[in-house]
């Protein structure tokens, strides 16, 4: 979505107005809510991308200066083994984004495929639906504990847990969309007119069922940040010493009362990121619903 706005922002305003009218996503995104979200996420993402250039220290470089207060060479202070928190938070954003940008599309793809499968036959539908029920019935975090216990902590288990937890959302939304669109007059007409099932699906049904999927994508982003953080808090997050926002925050917990500033930066960053994502999701939702 970011690319959409970026590539189109250069176009003359007149074209923009026309595009806005035609494209409900763009229309939603360009609301005050959407712009605020885009700015927050954009700034944080930029900081994460430029982390190696912006931070003077490597995120894993330790020193004698443990739990140094913010200021001087360490604008956000240092952690318990003397690592620069500014660097750790920036690299944390980077790692979080990497996780999210892999896991969420994977979930979207898996969910969509399952939805297509489910709408193809009644039997498949029953199986897929039970699978979704099962995943949703398990408390996600216990699933996370179990998967990590089997695989060992790391980047991959976090991605898998997020993807698994978010697949039913995508699947259900698309399945419902296809079922509704399929019975619309235009689809029925196409079928009656002799178009094949696949052709009707691809040419007529899918393009119209995809709207809620885009919104679901935006809703899934903050949830992914949440799952990463929660897994770090339960001690099954990304493998140390690599920082993520959740791991930096959870490491600060023992020092809440003695060094409260330690928690401040990761706290504000996580909040910003999820808030930004949520605003974008809401803006998109509004645009589509209008």
């Amino acid at each position: 979505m970011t690319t959409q706005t970026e590539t189109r922002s250069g176009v003359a305003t007149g074209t923009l107005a026309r595009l806005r009218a035609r494209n409900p996503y763009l229309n939603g995104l360009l609301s005050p809510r959407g712009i605020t979200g885009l700015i927050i996420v954009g700034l944080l993402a930029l900081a994460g991308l430029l982390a190696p250039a912006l931070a003077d220290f490597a995120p894993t470089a330790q020193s004698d200066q443990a739990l140094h207060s913010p200021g001087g060479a360490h604008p956000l202070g240092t952690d318990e083994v003397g690592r620069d928190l500014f660097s750790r938070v920036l690299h944390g954003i980077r790692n979080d984004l990497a996780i999210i940008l892999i896991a969420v599309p994977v979930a979207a793809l898996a969910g969509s495929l399952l939805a297509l499968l489910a709408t193809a036959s009644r039997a498949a539908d029953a199986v897929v639906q039970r699978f979704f029920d099962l995943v949703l019935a398990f408390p996600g975090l216990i699933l996370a504990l179990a998967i990590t216990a089997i695989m060992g902590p790391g980047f991959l288990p976090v991605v898998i847990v997020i993807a698994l937890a978010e697949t039913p959302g995508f699947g259900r939304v698309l399945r419902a969309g296809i079922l509704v669109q399929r019975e619309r007059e235009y689809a029925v007409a196409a079928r009656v007119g002799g178009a094949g099932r696949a052709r009707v699906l691809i040419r007529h049904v899918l393009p119209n069922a995809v709207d809620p999927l885009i919104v679901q994508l935006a809703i899934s982003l903050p949830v992914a940040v949440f799952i990463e953080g929660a897994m770090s808090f339960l001690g099954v997050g990304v493998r140390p010493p690599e920082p993520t926002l959740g791991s930096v925050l959870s490491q600060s917990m023992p020092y809440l009362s003695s060094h409260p500033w330690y928690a401040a930066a990761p706290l504000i960053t996580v909040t910003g990121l999820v808030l930004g994502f949520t605003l974008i999701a809401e803006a998109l939702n509004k645009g589509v619903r209008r």
Partner: protein
Amino acid sequence: MNTLFLPPSPGPTRRGVLRAAGAGSALLTLAACRSAVSHSESDEVGASAAPRRGGTLTVAHGVDFTPALLFSQSSMSLPQRLVFNTLTRYDDDLRPQPELAESWEVSPDGTTVTLRLRRGVTYHDGRPFTADDVVFAVENLQTPERSAQLRSTAEAVTALDKRGDHELTLTLAHPVGNLFDLFEFMIIPDRNTVEEALTGDRLVGTGPFRFDGWRPGSLLTFSRNDSYWQSGRPYLDGVEIRVITQTDSLLSSLRTGQSQLSLGVVGRDAATLKDDPQFTITTYTTGNGCSYVGANTAVRPTNDKTVRQAIAWALDRERIVEQAYGGFALASAAPWPESSPVFTEDNRTHYRHDPDRARELLRQAGATDISLPLGYSASPGNTVIAEMVQYDLEQVGIRTELQPYDPANAQRRLISQEMPALWTMNHGFAQVTPSTLAVSAYPFNEAHNTSRFQSAEYTGLVQDAWRRADPLDEEALDLYQRIADVLLDEAFIIDIAVLDIVQVARADVRGVTLNKFNYLTLDDAFLA
């Protein structure tokens, strides 16, 4: 808002009234009463207060009781010496003192030991304690299912012969130098209820407190044993152990006086309490185990002694002690705490932080560009150690990839010899008779250890030391030093630091002690 949360109001009447108010009016009573956070005014007491009867001591602990591990050394060994007794108890110089065994006699060749047991001792259910109970206790520890670390010592007992109800003779397969470690370790349970003890339903012993109940995850309660064999003891009416798994809550429960004692405060948190006059902080030279880096001698390049020694020189132990343990540990290249007969400053500082020397050794070994896995048991405390070890090794050119294992998996890999080239963990058993380390702590075991290290010299020294009739004579001490020399030279277990047991007590708590296996002992404890 402040008026809503008054300091705790003392006196039972107020509390009674609140109880009577009932749960239905929880919000109303909230406005009128105690706070869970404000400081309680601790009474100023003179340092020389005389023992006082009465009161309940509340102990806060970060780990829940695991009854299945009752006969094993675990991270929760507080109830052992409250409910039960042991046969003997070491003094500060590792000389055994009487408990349930009043006196003992070791034959000159060291293969038979005669124990005379205390008379007039009864279990909490009124049954008298006899020699049969000791026989049961030893046989109990011989059972593999109890997973007692001192099983090898218990198994060296080949026969137990009663002479009457209060005397028995132990026949040993060979002289056993650490027999009194077993007597310090082995609680004497009621043999009729041991299955119920292992599920936590019922703990029956001869100790100063009766076990009233256990609510998993939150609370253990004990009340005074009025017919305790030591007359006039204990002073306390009862003991409560509150399980508080979160550090901040544990500290705040101490600050507010909801609990008065904790042995579960980790070093870096104790550092924040150091200057608070409300608390007395005690550390025991017995130590609370050691953190170490283990090396697998069956894989390259850690099969090379020079590489292992390089690792030993690369570690900045002082920084680890400072940053990870808040200063509450002793940087040491050797496993033994200050109280051990084999502790020397030379052993302790055999390896210091010397990255140049480490690099030089690695060059000599031809191991310049190496990358190794470093396993560890993933808990917040251990993660910091692993990260620091990783950083120190990186400075001398050894790249490592951290491999977090969850605790059960780490344990499985440790005892099934499946650790990678390097790992970091904690070990115990260096605080008692020095030979115990090599027969009861798995990482050091001469026959079978995680490092897959074996040498005829090490095995010979360990067996000789273990079979000493007198574990503290000149010859024994010499053997211990030679074991130390082998351990330091071979560096298959590279010790980092001996951890302190940190005891945080509110100022009015007196007379708390621990035995060598960290069993909380409150016979003489009182609230001043």
